């Protein structure tokens, strides 16, 4: 009797752990990120990958600038998690640095869902370089 009860406890633990893993999978699920930049005009030298980049989402640049790149970040997730702008910022900044940009403007967001389990979030922006 005592033997069967000691067996049951690990089984229950296994079941509950599996349930936690399953629920975690549903909530977090799988995410893939694609990012790229396209030079606008003459390509600029890259800046260090973790350089400082200003994100001007709701404000206009206060200095003269020129557009140097189109930036695209595409995040697709399966499950119930939805990507948002915050989750795209690291890749946006990385691509801005690679394209030689000082700041990001003209941010456009698109969210789509398809096949009930897939959700896509795409952000397009323009990388700018301030004129000295």
């Amino acid at each position, binding site marked *: 009797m005592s033997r069967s009860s000691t067996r049951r406890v690990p089984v229950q633990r296994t079941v509950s752990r599996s349930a936690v893993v399953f629920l975690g*999978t549903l909530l977090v699920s799988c995410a893939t990120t694609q990012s790229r930049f396209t030079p606008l005009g003459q390509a600029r030298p890259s800046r260090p990958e973790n350089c400082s980049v200003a994100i001007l989402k709701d404000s206009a640049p206060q200095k003269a600038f020129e557009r140097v790149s189109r930036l*695209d970040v595409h995040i697709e997730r*399966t499950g119930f998690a939805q990507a948002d702008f915050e989750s795209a910022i690291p890749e946006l900044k990385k691509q801005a640095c690679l394209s030689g940009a000082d700041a990001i403007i003209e941010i456009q967001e698109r969210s789509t869902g398809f096949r009930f*389990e897939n959700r*896509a979030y*795409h952000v*397009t922006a323009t990388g700018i370089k301030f004129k000295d």
Partner: protein
Amino acid sequence: MQGHRGRCLVPAAMLAISLTAGCASIPKMPSGAPTVFGKPSAVVQKAALDSLIVAGFEIQKTEPLYVEGFRPRRVGLVVGSGGETVGVWLEPLGDSRTGVRVDTAKSSMGIVGQRTWNADILNEMSKSLGKPE
């Protein structure tokens, strides 16, 4: 042991065939009338590239009158997604008009999670090019 190996060989061979066939999806140019945009082909080509990128495609071919993209496969809870190849053909109709034909090729591997992207690509293109004629 040998019988067990033999039993595994058939599914393994089927998997290998389906994986190989899964990579061989090539879009074919539709024969119907093209969708016509009132822009030069260079402008339309750029819009086609942009629309593929927005839909999550990786650009594989970029030619003046043809663009091709592949959607990476993504693991899903049930069926996943990706694996489609989309081809966009451009046909200059004079200096300021361009005909566009789009085709989605689905691979046999993971076909349940794949979809036809033709309308999405044309819709995205029309956002920057204006409504087609």
